[in-house]
């Protein structure tokens, strides 16, 4: 990603880039259509489970076409922020770590690891601060979820 001053104008030269919003919408509608193809549509009077999905999918295809046309005609530059890759990766990792640990290991390890992983999303985190912060948040989480709210979750292991 060649970024200058953190901002990058989407230039008009990359046509495919401009058409992508609408194209993704159309792809999504086609996916709806394909999945719901075998649901019976019934008649207008007696709609089956497939009727509305089809209507919505066709409407979305129209919308997608409209958006492609509008985006291609739109010459004003839109400034997109650079992707926040670091945050994206570590926040995702935090959620996945939580998912991986909550059932086998229990709430406390899952909380600690998830907080530690999400802390890495910001550059400003030394190892020590991560440990201290995660421990503090885990303790607060324990007090909130288990002691105060009494959620039926396993604290440690199974």
């Amino acid at each position, binding site marked *: 990603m060649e970024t200058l001053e953190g901002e990058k104008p989407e230039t008009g030269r990359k046509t495919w880039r401009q058409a992508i919003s609408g194209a993704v919408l159309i792809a999504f509608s086609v996916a709806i259509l394909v999945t719901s193809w075998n649901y019976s549509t019934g008649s207008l009077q007696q709609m089956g489970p497939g009727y509305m999905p089809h209507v919505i999918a066709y409407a979305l295809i129209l919308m997608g076409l409209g958006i492609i046309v509008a985006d291609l005609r739109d010459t004003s530059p839109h400034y997109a*922020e650079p992707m926040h890759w*670091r945050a994206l990766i570590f926040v995702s990792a935090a959620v996945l770590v939580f998912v991986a640990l909550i059932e086998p290991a229990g709430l406390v390890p899952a909380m600690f690891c998830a907080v530690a992983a999400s802390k890495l999303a910001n550059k400003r985190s030394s190892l020590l601060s991560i440990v201290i912060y995660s421990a503090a948040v885990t303790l607060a989480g324990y007090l909130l979820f288990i002691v105060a709210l009494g959620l039926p979750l396993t604290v440690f292991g199974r």
Partner: protein
Amino acid sequence: MIDQFLLGLSVVLQPEVLMYAFFGVFLGQVIGVLPGVGAITAISLLLPVTFYLDPTSSVILLAGIYYGSQYGGAIASILLNLPGTPSSVVTCLEGYPLARSGRAGFALLITALSSFVGSMIGVVVVVLAAIPMAAFALKFGAPEYTMLVALGLVAASLISSGSQLRAFSMALVGIALGMVGSDASTGQYRFVATDALADGISLVSLAMGLFGLSEIIRNAANSEARKSKIQLSFKDIFPSKAELRSLVAPVGRGATIGSFFGALPGTGAAIASFMSYAFERRVSRTPEKFGKGHLPGLCAPEASNNAAAQTSFIPTLTLGVPGDAVMALIIGALILNGIIPGPRLIVDEPELFWGVIASFFVGNIILLIINIPLIGIWVRLLSIPYYRLYPAIVLLICVGVYSHRSSVTDVVLTLVFGLIGYIMKRYRFEPAPVLLGFVLGPMLEENFRRTMLLYGGDFSVFVSRPISAVLVGCGALLLGFTLLSAFISHRRALKAKHQQGGSYSV
């Protein structure tokens, strides 16, 4: 009406319910002040918790967060020139200059007072409108509901800030997501890819992903600490009698505008505050003073957005049709608690209905009381950097979603929606219509199907029944108006381009 309101008060003043009301507005105030956490995120975070409360307390808690955040949002606007909530954008315009001229304490006090008066007027409107609206709504059949829901979706898309095409397509995506699970009429499973989806996509996952996680991804790298450069002084913070008298009319106008726009589908507190600011500027005899700390420009929008925050509950509570994403979450909380929102709510659950309305009254008094004396706390909260905050929010999201249905799939789905929400925003798609479509979609489908069944697939029923015809007319007017204004602005842009081109060629 008075009797019912007193019944509501008796519900709210039970110590436990009062505690939730207090907790709700306090949290709302905190959320309004904190950077990067909006009312939608906070309400979706607390949705799973409400599963453990009774329905009345749940709605009182969630509603408190919403209107409490309107008070808190103004504090960040005045002290940092950064709007804490979308509806306090215009508060910056007058509040920050006033604070810079050394009257920050005064600005905060006068904002809190205007908010309070605006809210109270909004509450009165809610109390007055509730019974007639619910009685009127009982006349609604399937065709009326179909049109009402459709109008709500169209209005929310047309009035959105960005591209209307994009907003409407997001509403459609929301409807599509709402179809996952078993079909209400036939029971057939639709789009059920894994067993965990058999009950449909969880509203909690969708809201926390689209609004919670995506915001965190966008802001987590930000390591700036927000520090107010304003010296907060409490010297002469009390307005003089003349100043108070001069503010009666603007606050009254603001509250009126707010009450109106709050109750309409598609418009909410943010639009109400903009409208009110623009209106004040137009009627003012001294429009040149605006933007330099002019009091009517500060007070009217604040009264307006708070009144709107209250009256937006009218369609939600009396019709069961939410007007915006926040209200969609409130409806979601009712449904999660096994209560069917709609015009029968006022008859079947009078304690819930009036308890919630009375809680607005009590909650606003609490807000006024905690607002100014605790200003030291709010200022300290204001300067919490986001990087200290977001890991805890990630945790709240994970535990909240998981505890809701003990489902790991829900947590993974939340992440998926978070990533989708992040990418969507990059391509200028707003997530709010998705949530609205998600909640309104099943209502739309059910009522549309029932209409077609009852009236033999005849579309003329929508215009032959008077109420439904009025709704169709409103939708057509709105559509026509939007197309016209788009056409005019397009013409203007073309003209400007031509003139520019001409001057270049010379």
